[in-house]
């Protein structure tokens, strides 16, 4: 990531994604605020993949400090909590939105 052009490419992607994020939220009814927050929360659980990549690079660099391995495993664990818990809790919230025609 030392190349300025690579950086600029990533920056372009960042800007576009920010715009998508802003535009994709339109007139959300208030009842959906919490589920939407919860779903976006699950999506940033993508950090789990970052944790996996970092762990792999740690091993590949032959840095065998136990503390670092613990830190990397902890990062993966936290990321997994974020992803799996996040989606599960969103799914549960949204079950409340099934229309029940009557009791």
């Amino acid at each position, binding site marked *: 990531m030392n190349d300025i052009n690579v950086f600029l490419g990533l920056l372009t992607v960042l800007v576009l994604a920010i715009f998508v994020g802003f535009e994709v939220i339109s007139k959300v009814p208030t009842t959906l605020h919490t589920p939407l927050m919860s779903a976006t929360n699950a999506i940033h659980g993508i950090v789990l993949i970052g944790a996996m*990549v970092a762990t792999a690079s740690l091993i590949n660099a032959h840095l065998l400090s136990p503390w670092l391995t613990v830190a990397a495993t902890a*990062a993966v664990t936290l990321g997994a909590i974020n992803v799996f818990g996040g989606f599960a809790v969103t799914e549960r919230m949204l079950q409340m939105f099934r229309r029940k025609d009557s009791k």
Partner: protein
Amino acid sequence: MTATAIGAIGDLFSIALFILGLHYLNAPATARLGNRLAMVGMALALAFAAWQTLGSAGLPIAIGVIVGGAIGVIAALRVKMTAMPQMVALYNGAGGGAAALISLVEFYVLSNGGHGLYPVIGVSLVLSAIIGAISFSGSIIAFLKLQELMTGRPITYPGQQIVNGLIALAVIGLAVWFVATAGLAAPWAILALLGVALVLGVLFVLPIGGADMPVVISLLNSFTGLAVAITGFELGSTLLIICGALVGASGTLLTVLMGKAMNRSITNVLFGAFGAAGGTEVASASGGPQNVRSASADDVAVMLAYAQKVMVVPGYGMAVAQAQHSVKALADQLEKRGVKVSYAIHPVAGRMPGHMNVLLAEANVPYPALLDMEDANPEFPTTDVALVIGANDVTNPAARSVTSSPIYGMPILDVDKASNVIVLKRSMRSGFAGIENPLYELENTSMLFGDAKASVDELTAAVKAL
């Protein structure tokens, strides 16, 4: 085609699925589909990442994913519906913590060679460490407050702003110095940075009241998104950059919308406690004894049983008393007698958006009986009894007329237009906004004091006995 290229194409599908998912999450009818699409996107992305990393780091990754996944899913399925917001806070904190730890690990990996870090890497490392750590510790405080493991009241002390300012300065100073030396001062510098940022996260959330936590969680959620996007720069991952930016941006907008829905500006939420310390106390204390009528459960039961149209107006008190099942039982009794029972749901009744919907759905109240504010308000003039169960601010007519009121301009449920208003609450104390409610002094209003669940159960018994 190389493995990286295949992975990149897979990531592109994931990204499209995430965006479509968010798009569909904007409308109740498609929200579940939206969440499912995002889940598929995540599964796809994880599969590609596993394919590329499990070979070299199989064990730690497998342990982490299995342990973390189990904790996350089990907690999500066990938690009570009403505790959802604090669960979201915890999961969000986990994401922030992961981003911070990645910075730590990557610091060691990258500085392994002995030469410093490239500026872009150095800056992103530091930023994602700071923001991730703030989000981590801030989310935990938010959780503790909402779970009532610590006081939900704003925690303030003299000189607080100065202390917070100094800590923020320390963070900035450390960060600048770290980048300037290209990280060669490490490892103590990056550890110190993480430590101070954790403290800052705690101090940032402490002075904010429990009732404002949903907004704060949403804000911390977009912080984590930002941290993840920056982690993407650190690792050169387009996927992380895009997902992080998506969440950062949509989360920010959502935070603003949530604030708007409860008529609070974000700055007011974040820094309001400093200005108006104890404001709530003063207002509710000055209330004193008002000129109100109180009614017995039997009186109210008669009124309800012989009404044609009853509108239930639930609020935070119903959540506190966990009275939703009792309310449903009362409604069933009334409907047996031919009374038409509907529910008027104010958008910010309770303490999180959709709070009342979630509770009433849990109690199996049929969906069509729930009326939005827009649909409910035209009904009140033809309603015989408006039964206000632990709602206060959202029924306060001062919002319509008293320009000096802190809630002036907030749209409210026009319960005062009903022929009779019955208010179930424990005392004359004020609600979240800490202001008096002139509704209680109106001609057509009667108070039924007591815990909401106990009162409703009494009413049900009395109706049955008629």
